[in-house]
């Protein structure tokens, strides 16, 4: 189990992180979500014992990162935002080096084989790292983080710069790591966090402003966001939707699909009123092409949480 209590990290006089408190249970895949510069990387570097905290405590399996850094490092695997790879080494040589460096004794080859298997690197294991594509380099980065079979794996922006096929593979890989390892990964891409994590920690200006599962976070927002695409007169469609009981707000958005007279709306309602909207549109003679929950619901939660924090800060400043 990882416990973070009132963690602060200062660079000179500037607070980069803090206060951060969180608990991560064994086997969980937890996402650290935040905008660029929010403090994600600094938090992860402290957890990986790359940096020491300015204040507060971080314990991994009860071991403090300041008092027992060696023991914590032996239990932790870390992939920074740029994979730490020696281009002049072959993949298997590098993984063997990383395993020995992290204290693996005995059958190092077995550890390397397992890491290669988990990260699907078999076909490039004898290749020089400098000749690998970005996707494979990222996988080698993950392989070096898990080659010593750590309890805790820290991944900083693991899908950064990957193409869509590689992203799908990386999601599967991260999901597979959960269970055997406790995984904490950071991203500023909401869809990634949604797709791979059991739980989210939302960080803003170095502080955790919310935590919970996707459902728990989305339930914190007031109302439900719906997306409606119709074929028909825009004004008639809007009037039909507004008339539905429970609809608070209707806004025209760029149409999701091409075609003549196709219009899309973003609807905010107190409840899930999709059936009522559908009925109203059909009764009003408007063709319904699509109606569903807002795909970017988590994004709106995140923006709302950030806004809440901003408002609280402003109130504090004026008080």
């Amino acid at each position, binding site marked *: 189990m990882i416990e973070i209590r009132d963690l602060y990290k200062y*660079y*000179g006089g500037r607070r980069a992180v803090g206060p951060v408190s969180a608990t991560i249970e064994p086997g969980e895949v937890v996402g650290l979500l935040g905008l660029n510069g929010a403090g994600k990387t600094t938090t992860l570097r402290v957890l*990986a*014992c*790359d*940096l*020491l905290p300015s204040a507060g405590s971080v314990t991994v399996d009860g071991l403090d990162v300041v008092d027992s*850094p*060696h*023991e914590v*490092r*032996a239990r*932790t695997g*870390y992939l*920074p935002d*740029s*994979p*730490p*790879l*020696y*281009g*002049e*080494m072959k993949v298997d040589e590098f993984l063997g*080096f*990383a395993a*020995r*460096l*992290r*204290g693996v004794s005995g059958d190092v080859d077995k550890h390397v084989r397992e890491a290669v298997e988990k990260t699907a690197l078999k076909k490039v294991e004898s290749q020089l790292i400098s000749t690998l594509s970005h996707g494979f380099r990222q996988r080698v980065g993950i392989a*070096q983080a898990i080659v010593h079979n750590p309890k805790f794996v820290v991944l900083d922006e693991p899908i950064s710069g990957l193409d869509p096929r590689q992203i799908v593979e990386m999601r599967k890989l991260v999901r597979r790591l959960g269970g055997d390892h406790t995984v904490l990964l950071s991203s500023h891409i909401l869809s990634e966090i949604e797709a791979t994590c059991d739980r989210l920690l939302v960080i803003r200006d170095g502080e955790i402003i919310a935590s919970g599962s996707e459902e728990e976070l989305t339930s914190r927002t007031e109302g439900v966001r719906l997306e409606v695409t119709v074929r028909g007169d825009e004004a008639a469609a809007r009037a039909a939707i507004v008339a539905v009981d429970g609809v608070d707000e209707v806004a025209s958005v760029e149409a999701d699909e091409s075609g003549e007279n196709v219009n899309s709306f973003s609807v905010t309602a107190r409840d899930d009123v999709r059936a009522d909207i559908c009925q109203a549109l059909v009764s009003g003679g408007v063709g319904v092409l699509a109606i569903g929950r807002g795909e970017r619901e988590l994004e709106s939660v995140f923006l709302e949480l950030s806004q809440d924090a901003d408002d609280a800060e402003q109130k504090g400043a004026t008080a």
Partner: protein
Amino acid sequence: MSPALLIARRELYAYFRSPLAAIVIAGALLADGIYFYWKGLSEKLLSAEVLQEFFYGHSGAVAIASLFIAMRLFAEERQTGTMTLLNTAPIRDIEVVLGKFLSAFAVLTLLTLLSVYMPLLIFINGKVSLGHIAVGYLGATLYGAATLSIGLFASAVARSQVIAVILGAVMLVPLVLLWIIARATDPPLNSFLNALAIHHENYRAFMMGLLELDKVVYYVIVTFFFLLAATKSLEARRWR
């Protein structure tokens, strides 16, 4: 295998997978050879004086080579982001420093070994004692270890390899030239400065084939000091 030896082995691998070690060794041997021919073989000197000239020139080649060999040790890791791998491994910073020092020292020792043909040339038309050669090489090796540790420290604190070389030179040159300042000062300050100078009096004894314990201890202390400073600078980075 201990972490220091593991790191030393990987560093050696990196040195010889890139052209850096070959270029530095070739350049140093070329400069060494030209100086030896110019000062040692072109003038009428006693065999022992020729050998002294060789060790004098060799020390210059070693000092410059050591800065270039050491420049990549930490600065390159920092530039490529691989320093994180070492920082997050369960090993001590002193083991990282020792491993890197050992690998660079092995490259420098190879350079020294490849220069052996020059003193051996003296035997064609003259005679020198093997003891003189051995002591001279011991001095060159100790001097190389000291200059290498300065270069390693510079690499540990510099942001780039170019800055590491410049910083290493900025630290080394005053240490070499302290004897000039010593000449302009009165006792006991001049004795102190002479004792502190990394080359002049401390190296001259070895050049002449004299093995003096205090000179050996001086170079060991300088090497130890800069390796310790490099270790502390790595530790300090974690708190920043």
